[in-house]
């Protein structure tokens, strides 16, 4: 075992930085897309639920069922199952772009459920007040539910993002790229403990940073 260690190890000196960037890109893209699609889905879930603006119990049960199915499939299996879909969307089943597809599909229902719960926190009275002012359902959603739930929605996006960091690492096991791939191919398969430790440290730093930024933004928009 005379492999070069730590700062002499090319796996760390040359591959660490691009892997970190890939992980950040995957996390950022999938978080962004999950929020983009998960927010409307969460609002839809909430408004069709019992006590929602346009309660439709049957539709709610169907939506809820789909969301729960997606959430209950272990992520590693979801990635493999989505390989054809990823290939269709980005033209390849490998690389971080393909991983973003699976990550997004996995994160949308996760975020949607958190959105639904955040919206439920908005007091009935505020909604009634807006309805009394003659607001339409769309106005109530845009002007009352979403702005009032904003700290919760941002908190939910933070939780989703942190979860996605760990998912990117899992995706590394099936050719997803990023720090996970580096940790598995060098740290695990080639017994490079230094690479493994370096990857863990960077992942911890990324998660800490996301949580810190998320908390700061949530606090900045919270006027309660």
């Amino acid at each position, binding site marked *: 075992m005379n492999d070069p260690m730590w700062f002499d190890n090319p796996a760390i000196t040359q591959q660490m930085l691009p892997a970190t960037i890939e992980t950040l890109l995957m996390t950022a893209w999938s978080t962004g897309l999950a929020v983009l699609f998960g927010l409307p889905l969460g609002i839809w879930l909430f408004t069709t639920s019992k006590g929602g603006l346009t309660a439709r119990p049957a539709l709610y049960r169907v939506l809820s069922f789909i969301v729960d199915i997606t959430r209950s499939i272990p992520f590693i299996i979801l990635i493999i199952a989505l390989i054809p879909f990823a290939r269709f969307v980005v033209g390849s089943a490998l690389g971080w772009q393909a991983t973003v597809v699976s990550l997004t599909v996995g994160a949308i229902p996760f975020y949607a459920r958190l959105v639904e719960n955040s919206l439920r926190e908005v*007091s009935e*009275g*505020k909604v*009634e*007040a*807006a*309805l*009394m*002012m*003659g*607001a*339409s359902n769309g*106005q109530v959603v845009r*002007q*009352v539910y979403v*702005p*009032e739930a*904003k700290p919760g929605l941002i908190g939910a996006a933070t939780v989703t993002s942190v979860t996605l960091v760990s998912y990117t690492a899992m995706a590394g096991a099936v050719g997803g790229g990023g720090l996970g791939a580096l940790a598995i191919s060098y740290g695990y398969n080639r017994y490079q403990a230094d690479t493994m430790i370096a990857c863990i440290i960077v992942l911890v730093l990324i998660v800490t940073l996301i949580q810190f930024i998320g908390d700061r933004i949530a606090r900045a*928009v919270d*006027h*309660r």
Partner: protein
Amino acid sequence: MIELRGLRKVFGDTVALAEIDLSVPAGEIHGIVGRSGAGKSTLIRCLTGLDSPSSGTVSIDGADLTDRSGSGMREARRSIGMVFQHVNLLDSRTAVHNVAHPLQIAGVSKAERLAKAHELLEIVGLGDRADNYPAQLSGGQKQRVGIARALAAEPKVLLCDEPTSALDASTTDQILGLIRSLRDRLGITVLIITHEMSVIREICDSVTLLADGRVARTGTLAEVISEPGSTLAKDLVPLPPIGLDDTGPATDADAVGADGAGTDDAGTDDAGTSGVQIRLVEVALAGTSLPQVLTCAQSVGVSADAILAGAVETIEGRQVGRIRFTLASAAKSKELIAALEAEGIYAEEAA
């Protein structure tokens, strides 16, 4: 301005509102009182279209609210400004943006609605708190913002649902004063739903008592209070809580009489020694002045010392309220009641 005709609301087998007829003329402050479960909340939900009545009509300024739906209903709701017990301001908006919200919903341009909102905040005395978030305001200030918001769309009717129930006494007085001054200034019609008799006494021109989903009594404040023997009058102008069971003399600041602890003692002694039951006589003051009642009482040999308690208010320049005499015998109480009734003053034996 506000007209309810045969308003009825049934939930399953429960009749929440049974045939409510109510009419509030423009510019009047009308109070609706009733115990919880009397139908107050259901009434307000029907008035605002949050619930649709099972039958009957609600019309505001001649426009029927009951046959509307969707956008027609949203349009109609803008003619009603609503003040809530829990204010229901949006925490994510500053005071001025909360006040501007109804105008935003109505599609008024940003510059225009903010100008109007600033103007309204000035009117409610919060011009300097425009950029504060609700969390930075006191309960009374929040309710002022709530009132300014209710007025933003220039409604014809201000509906207040327990507007002061979450506020302390002095803040309540300020808010009620504000509502009254707004009525005087803008000529707006106000409907206040409350369980606080003090609110009714303080600012209402007329009042309706709801009981079991029906209008138990309705009329101007003076009418209702001076109505002999009415329980609403007794609730509106309550006697201080003293009776023969109390050992001490009345200390309530509102109480007129009971200065003689001796009277109390004498009465109790009488009852104790002769076995004669103490008689309480309640006299309703309705336009008759206190001296008139006293003169009448003296004519049958009942002195002011016999007054156990009294509660008198001046409403619309007339003294209204009740006085409770304590008398040693049934004969004496009959004599007093007869003498008072001869003068056209209502009196009854109290329990």
